[in-house]
């Protein structure tokens, strides 16, 4: 199917000699969805830098990056999960519950170093719950994580009610927004980059990562090929929970406030970024580079439009339209191509 080339897998095409090889490489590069996301991202960043006042300034760059760190973090395990054909909609509620618990533990007087560890472990445990429901009981992850979305968000209100814990020590909250040396790049971005590299290595350069594509394309075939589908999915949900917990710590310190409604609705932004980055919702296709470009694209677009005085809520139209375009266009192009091929076939 023509559709396939748009989402081509990251392997390079078989080497051919000389100029033909270069041509094939270029073609392979430009029929890939993530290449186009990177190009659109570059156009948006350059265009906004030139036309929107203050977009390229160091202060705005710092805030733009800080705003997308949480989404970027959660998008990493989400990419792997969607590639296996599952989904985790509970991530934002996990973030909220971890934030609420973090606040209560701080009120209880525990040292923050310990709290951070406990909260990430809590996130992993919440992921275990999802993983058990999906892999042990064989329930659809969409339904399970809609359930835990409600349950975890509910529990975070049970834990913290409608109050906020905001008296975290200055050096911790400052650390969450401090930058590396004199550059506008916040330290938190470095954490995201390190994790992104780790997830990219796992996804693209290990047998485990390759097996995720296999189970996304056909779980049954993957099972027969000796892939332990359920075990892999289980650990992905655990990773998703742990990373959401970490994002909860970051969110709490970044906004210096632990609240039960922290990160409400963030799951939609994460899923939008992942799909925009070229991951197929059916599973089996997508790259981490594409997803990171998708996260940056959504983030910079929102930021630029906000600077251009477009109200934040109206920006939803842009997010939604991008998301729809990113799935409709490749599908329609694919359908058109296979229709054309069929016609050529019939004539010939």
């Amino acid at each position: 199917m023509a559709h396939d080339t748009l989402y081509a897998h990251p392997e390079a095409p078989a080497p051919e000699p000389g100029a033909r090889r270069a041509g094939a490489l270029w073609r392979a590069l430009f029929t890939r969805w993530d290449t186009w996301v990177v190009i659109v991202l570059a156009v948006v960043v350059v265009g906004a830098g030139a036309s929107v006042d203050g977009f390229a300034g160091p202060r705005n760059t710092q805030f733009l990056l800080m705003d997308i760190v949480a989404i970027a973090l959660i998008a990493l395990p989400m990419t792997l999960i969607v590639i296996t054909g599952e989904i985790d909609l509970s991530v934002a509620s996990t973030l909220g519950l971890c934030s609420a618990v973090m606040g209560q533990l701080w009120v209880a007087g525990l040292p923050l170093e310990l709290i951070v560890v406990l909260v990430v472990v809590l996130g992993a445990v919440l992921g275990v719950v999802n993983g058990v429901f999906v892999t042990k009981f064989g329930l659809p992850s969409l339904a399970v994580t809609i359930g835990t979305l409600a349950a975890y968000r509910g529990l975070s209100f049970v834990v913290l009610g409608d109050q906020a814990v905001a008296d975290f020590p200055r050096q911790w909250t400052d650390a969450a927004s401090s930058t590396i040396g004199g550059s506008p790049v916040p330290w938190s971005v470095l954490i995201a980059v390190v994790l992104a590299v780790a997830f990219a290595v796992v996804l693209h350069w290990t047998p485990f990562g390759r097996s995720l594509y296999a189970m996304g394309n056909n779980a049954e075939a993957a099972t027969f090929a000796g892939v332990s589908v359920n075990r892999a999915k289980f650990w992905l949900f655990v990773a998703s929970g742990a990373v959401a917990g970490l994002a909860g710590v970051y969110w709490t310190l970044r906004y210096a406030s632990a609240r039960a409604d922290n990160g409400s609705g963030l799951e939609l932004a994460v899923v939008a970024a992942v799909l925009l980055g070229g991951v197929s919702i059916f599973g089996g296709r997508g790259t981490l580079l594409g997803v990171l470009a998708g996260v940056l694209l959504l983030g910079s677009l929102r930021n630029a439009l906000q600077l251009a005085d477009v109200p934040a809520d109206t920006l939803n139209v842009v997010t939604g339209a991008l998301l729809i375009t990113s799935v409709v266009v490749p599908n329609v192009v694919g359908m058109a191509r296979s229709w054309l091929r069929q016609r050529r076939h019939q004539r010939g």
Partner: protein
Amino acid sequence: MKTSEKHAGAQRADRSDVDGQRPDRRTGLGRRILVARELGIVVALLLLVAVTTVTNPAFLSAQSIRDVLLGASILVILAVGQTVVIVSRNIDLSVGAVLGLVAFATGKLFGAAPGTPILVAVLVGIALGAACGVVNGVLVAAARVPALVITLGTLYVFRGIDHSWAKGEQINAADMPSGFLRLGTSTLLGIPLLAVIALAVVLLVGAYLQSYRSGRELYAIGSEPNAARLSGIPVGRRVFIAFVVSGGMAGLAGVLYAARFGTLDATVGTGIELQVVAAAVVGGVAIFGGSGSVYGAAVGAVLLTTIGSSLAVLRINPFWQQAVVGGLILAAIGLERLLAARAANRLRGRTSHGA
């Protein structure tokens, strides 16, 4: 494995329907499933009411029942629309945004033309909602893109349109005619008018899904879209109609929301899509299509609403409500899986006996 279960689901759905005429007494399979599904949730609802009433007899007073019915009506209507979409193995996450948009539009309509007859306002609301459904339906059916992604996108788009239209403005009850606002509070023979409308919608759509060919075809599509296509069902057209129905229902719900609450801004109905999906799932509608009924979904919506008022009566921290809803969803899909496995076993057993 998935396919075989879906198949079992299809037969199950069909069985529970023919059971109305009791042709299959021998195994009683259909009846047992029906009992486990719709009746299970009714029992859960009755238990909840019983426990709450024992604690505080006032819970069963006419006024309190009226409050619950009034509170549940809008959710019921949304859940009915959602069920039509879910049985066809799709989902509509945009209903909250459509409700918000239509509610605000209704307020604007009365602001611009205070003399608009109520029936016209209701029809305009349904039409606007259905138009949103057309957008969803075209994108899902023609471009063959998963509904989850499309309606997630249109959720953003419709909500964004709502925001850019409202620009932070709030419409108050004073801006709408009192006759229209009475629609939200008046009663018919002691029953809230909203609840009567909701009941009518449930019966109408229930009859359609149960007894009309195109309604039955939605179940076939949800059970196995490819098989449905091969057997000549116009899958795209049916799915399209399902989304238009869901949009129209969300539109109706939006108008009723405006009548009931009177205070409207661009955030109306935010996040309600999850409650709607929860109501359907708790009511026994399988999230991957092929089985479930609007009656179950409606009782699910009433149950979710009752939990809210029960917690208050039982003096439990109201913050528990959402957590309980989450637990209910997990329990419901767990039970659904258990029943599906048992039904599949039974069907397999019967075939091997050569029946």
